[in-house]
């Protein structure tokens, strides 16, 4: 099921009141995911039907893309404003509940991938499940299913550092999907990929959209934001959204 996130007049300030105060996100309002045009919201914040969406946050370095992505994914709290995840205001939730929302709702694909060296593909994919009350066997089957789906079955026992860049990218995607999140957040996912692998990645993200996932990508790669698969593009500059291109 897709996830709807509403960012309402959100500002994030670092080092507030100090000479080095920075404001990477400034009074931003944006709605991501949810029903398509004309679709009704059931009132509980859940969508009426599973419609996937790929939204892109584009802009130069320092424009606030990554901070906005972190705010959408409940990794940080806003200094002011509201963040509604499927209709629930999460901005002021205690850390433990915020972690729960993040874990159940979002899957992250980081710019540096952040796979754990020394662990196998299977172990890396299963990592988010370790602190959950899910049986080891069930978790393993779920991970193997994703690994197969992403074409990595023959590599499942390999240590991640032994994989190619594209394969590592797919491991990161599998790990992001293991908790069956409604939304995938990807930060500069093509930063270390060549054109061929970038297209392959977009293909995978397109498939996920087809499965009803909401996908948000922070990027300044034209290969991503010019892709026909992208539903919406938000251009950011100096912490603000300049326009909604699509």
């Amino acid at each position, binding site marked *: 099921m897709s996830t709807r996130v509403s960012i309402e007049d959100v500002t994030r300030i670092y080092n507030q009141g100090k000479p080095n105060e920075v404001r990477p996100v400034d009074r931003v309002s944006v709605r991501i995911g949810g029903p398509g045009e004309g679709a009704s919201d059931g009132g509980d914040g859940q969508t009426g039907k599973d419609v996937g969406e790929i939204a892109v946050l584009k802009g130069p370095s320092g424009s606030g893309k*990554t901070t906005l*992505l*972190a705010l959408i994914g409940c990794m940080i709290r806003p200094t002011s404003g509201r963040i509604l995840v499927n209709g629930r205001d999460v901005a002021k939730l205690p850390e433990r509940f915020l972690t729960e929302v993040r874990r159940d709702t979002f899957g*992250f694909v980081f710019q540096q991938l952040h796979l*754990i060296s020394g662990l196998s593909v299977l172990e890396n994919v299963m990592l*988010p*499940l370790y602190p959950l009350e*899910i049986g080891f066997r069930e978790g393993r089957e779920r991970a193997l299913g994703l690994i197969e789906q992403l074409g990595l079955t023959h590599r499942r026992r390999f240590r991640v550092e032994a994989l190619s860049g594209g394969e590592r990218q797919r491991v990161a995607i599998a790990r992001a999907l293991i908790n069956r999140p409604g939304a995938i957040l990807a930060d500069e996912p093509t930063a270390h990929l060549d054109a061929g692998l970038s297209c392959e990645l977009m293909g995978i993200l397109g498939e996920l959209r087809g499965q009803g996932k909401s996908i948000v990508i922070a990027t300044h790669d034209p290969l991503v934001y010019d892709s026909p698969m992208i539903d919406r593009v938000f251009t950011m500059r100096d912490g603000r959204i300049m326009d909604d291109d699509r």
Partner: protein
Amino acid sequence: MTRAQFGKHLKILEFALASMLRRRMKNAGIVVVFSAVVFLLSSIVFLTSALRAEAMATLEGAPELIVQRTVAGRHALIPVDYAEVIAALPGVGSVQPRYWGYYYDIYSDANYTLIGVPDEGPGSAGQLPLHLVEGDMITPGRTEVCVIGAGVARARSARIGSIVSLRNSRGWMQEYEVVGILAGASRLLTNDLILLPERDLKTLLGLPDDRATDLLVEVYNPNEVANISRKLLERLPQARPISHAEITRTYDTLFDWRGGLLLAMSLGAVAAFMILAWDKATGLSAEERREIGILKAIGWETSDILELKLWEGAALAITAFLTGITAGYAHVFHSGAALLRPVLQGWSTLFPSFDLAPRVEPYELGVLFLLTVAPYIAATIVPAWKAAITDPDRVMRAS
């Protein structure tokens, strides 16, 4: 706890062990140093405790009062007729002269303790609780025979039927046939022992007929020992009564002091370990910080990360503790505490070597555990907690 919750903890434990294996060099280094410190501390504790127990075992069955004689403040042979004066005191049972002495053996470079066996046998009042490993005890009327401790047998390569030669007070060699080899509840007690017929011993050491080494006094009521000692001193001013309690206290103090001295000497090593442990445990590597950030970012809670680090710290510390304790045990009870014995044993550097009876006090183990494992785990948890409470978005920005 439900099965699912139990499974969750098990998975975190499994991940903790896998993480430790990934950093095996660093962890192996800590285990080696940690084990070495536990080895040193446990060796001291085991050895002190075992020696004290050995010493105490020698007092088992000893009479409530031993009376010696001092001349010019030094121990001197005691007239046997003192026994009659002491026996006349109210509350005193039997009084028996004891004949014993030390013998320095130039061949084995060791000091032996020689004890005379009266005709009524070694089990009489005040004699030591002895058991034979093999052979027979000296029977009444036999002469020029001996029963030796295991240490003497080893030093002299003697067996049943062998001849042990000892130089008598005139400088002549005197031969004794070994008829038995001893064991005892305390190996400290029997190891250096040579039992001779009382008459042979007196001849060997040149003891006058009317003198004994000391007198063993049986007191009916142990609470009366102090009173009897006072009365005894009034009648025999040169006597030196030594109560059972005084000897016990002296041994206790002696070994506590020696153990304390060694522990103080080890303080440097312990301090060095603590600094190393603190440094290793608190100095999370960039890799570990990164991993904690990743785990937070992919949905681990702070409590999950603390549990992970708790498992890691506990697994490492307990492994090192058990290794150190086992090595300490083997060092003290199987290889004779070769590294520490000269300091703790002190007076018996000329003693034939002996094996200590294995003895472990749960209380002492508990204290060692608390002093080593607990601080290490605490030192591991604190930096992990600091790293785990930072915002997970840092990981998104990390390059």
